[in-house]
């Protein structure tokens, strides 16, 4: 490699104008530049390419070539998975075909599955609308209120001829979206207040906020969920029961609030002192200063850690499995517990992974775009 590299460099230095970069095509030039620029880089490229091809090939072999897509129904009316079990080298996608509705919607009444389906669409629509800057004004408030009310009506029913579905029958993707959306929607304003409070000059406010953040951050989410589901009900008066999902939701809001508060505080601290002083000099009140000058700039700075926390929390919602709520992950795990499906957990996990990836990747891509757009003035 070394012998060839040296003459090429000398050659191109001499006859640079005649050897355009287009020679051999853009791709080849790019590869030469990035993948094969030295013997070391070439070795790494080849080693990685070998591993990639090898494992990709065996994955494709498992997932597509040798895969079984459906199984016949056995004599007892249950699916007969013998063909899958005799085929250890290939995936058994029949488990997804059989169980996809359970994975997505859990124990929600089967004939009413269109309702949670519509709820998922409403959530996605809500995310898209909220992401459009055109709606970043007062209009977003009624949009959220109307959508969340619709979601509540669809999930619970009991009005407009919809049958009533108690909360413990909800499950799957809607639970994950509800926990994540409500969790972050409530935690975010709470976090801003706490972050502002932590920088307050009033000792009581500051102490409360510091205490809250440190207490919540000092324990794992799982212990908060246990508190909410195991200890909290014992403290309630006789005959009073707060919904299990609501208790978990409050625990998640409190937990997310503490983490987001520290992220927001980071943004507040990063803002130059001159901004605060300029706002004061203009005679703005505290709230005007905060809302018009401080927060817009502070939040813009912390978009990457905010989204980091958001993505983390979207996945943390799966911890509710320990208190018996059927979120997406729990429903997936339950789906392959029947004896004849027991061997096909990997297929279910692959599908769950894809669903989680779609949501997290969308968040990540959107935040990257938002960051670029909002920080355009900083690029020189």
């Amino acid at each position: 490699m070394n012998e060839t590299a040296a003459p090429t460099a000398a050659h191109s230095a001499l006859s640079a104008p005649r050897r355009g970069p287009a020679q051999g095509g853009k791709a080849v030039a790019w590869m030469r530049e990035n993948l094969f620029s030295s013997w070391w880089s070439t070795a790494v490229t080849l080693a990685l390419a070998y591993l990639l091809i090898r494992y990709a090939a065996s994955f494709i072999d498992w997932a597509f070539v040798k895969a079984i897509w459906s199984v016949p129904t056995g004599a007892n009316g249950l699916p007969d998975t013998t063909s899958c079990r005799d085929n250890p080298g290939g995936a058994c996608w029949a488990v997804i075909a059989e169980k996809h509705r359970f994975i997505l919607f859990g124990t929600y009444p089967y004939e009413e599955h269109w309702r949670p389906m519509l709820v998922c669409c409403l959530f996605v629509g809500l995310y898209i609308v909220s992401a459009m800057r055109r709606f970043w004004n007062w209009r977003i408030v009624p949009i959220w209120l109307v959508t969340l009310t619709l979601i509540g009506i669809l999930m619970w029913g009991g009005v407009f001829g919809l049958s009533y579905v108690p909360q413990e029958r909800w499950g799957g993707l809607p639970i994950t979206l509800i926990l994540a959306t409500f969790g972050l929607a409530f935690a975010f304003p709470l976090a801003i207040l706490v972050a502002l409070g932590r920088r307050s000059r009033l000792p009581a406010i500051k102490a409360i906020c510091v205490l809250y953040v440190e207490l919540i951050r000092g324990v794992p989410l799982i212990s908060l969920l246990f508190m909410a589901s195991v200890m909290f009900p014992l403290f309630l008066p006789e005959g009073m029961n707060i919904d299990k999902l609501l208790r978990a939701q409050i625990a998640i809001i409190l937990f997310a609030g503490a983490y987001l508060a520290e992220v927001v505080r980071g943004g507040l601290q990063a803002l130059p002192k001159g901004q605060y002083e300029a706002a004061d000099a203009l005679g703005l009140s505290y709230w005007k200063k905060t809302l018009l000058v401080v927060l817009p700039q502070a939040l813009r700075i912390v978009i990457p850690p905010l989204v980091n926390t958001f993505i983390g929390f979207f996945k943390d919602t799966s911890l509710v499995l320990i208190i018996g709520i059927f979120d997406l992950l729990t429903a997936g795990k339950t789906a392959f517990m029947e004896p004849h499906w027991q061997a096909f957990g990997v297929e279910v996990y692959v599908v769950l992974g894809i669903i989680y990836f779609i949501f997290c990747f969308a968040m990540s891509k959107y935040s990257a775009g938002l960051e670029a757009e909002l920080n355009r003035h900083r690029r020189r």
Partner: protein
Amino acid sequence: MHPTLRHLTAATAVALGLAAATPAPAQAPAQAPAAAPPANTLDAIRARGTLICGVNTGLAGFALPDSQGVWRGFDVDYCRAVAIALFNDANRVRFVPTTAQVRFTALQSGEVDMLSRNTTWTFSRDTSLGFDFTGINFYDGQGFMVKRSLGVQNARQLDGATICVQPGTTTEQNLADWARGNRINIRPVVIERLEDNIAAYNAGRCDAYTTDVSGLAAIRAVQSNPNDHVILPDVISKEPLGPLVRHGDQRFADLLRWIHFGLVAAEEFGITSQNVQQALASDPRPEVQRLLGRTGDLGRMLGVDNAWMANIIRGLGNYGEIFERNLGPIGLQRGRNALWTQPGGLQYAPPFR
């Protein structure tokens, strides 16, 4: 606005935000811990119109939602039986999935009316935890699975064998106690995950695998050739499972207890979901007539309809039918759960009179 006022506003806003978001556990000590739920659970269920039953979050054969999201299983059928007795409707029951950690709190706090969740009846649970177990509907216990090719007939022949076991469970302790008590030398191979245990057993790293017999049967049923494996007849620990209610719910406990006995008695009398109608009309045995509510007032003594047992058997079948429907497919034999009239059977119902 005056500067301090401004701060005050900010302070109030923050405080309000916190107050709104924090559930107030501050008043907690004022309440008695483990608050006693409504005095009479039976009346509360009637007023509500549905039974709330705590079940496992997912255990094949006992409680597991099927592809349509409908709960099915042995424990689930016991919940449905109670709903039939109370409302003559197997669907008027809400299933609350409970994990091992939250099940007792869920019952203590009144979140569920009863637990039917493969829970072992132990001394401390029955006394200090404040529950009443209403019977044993499944005699489970720790056993061994070996390969048929090994030629082992009973557990005492496992002297010198390597045995796969999961750590941190009573299973491991039971195994050690049993080996010491019987002066048998065993080499336990402790592997964390169930799947890895099975893999090690299949690869021949251990001669036997040990866990509860119901678990062994479920594992055996999904082996590529179940007949290559034998579950030894010896059971080295007692795991009696049954439904439970809170202390103080005597009438509700009576109902659950006699539903189980009724199911067992029905099997003993040969009454099934198929022939219950015929038996109701023409069976001459006085006890059957009382059980099915044609004579006597047994139902009313329990506070339910006199046709309670007839309805349950029509909807779900007798004990044997419930067992076969749910636990048959995962490969469980009746074993100790056979009627007392069978050799080795323990299921016995007191007389209905």
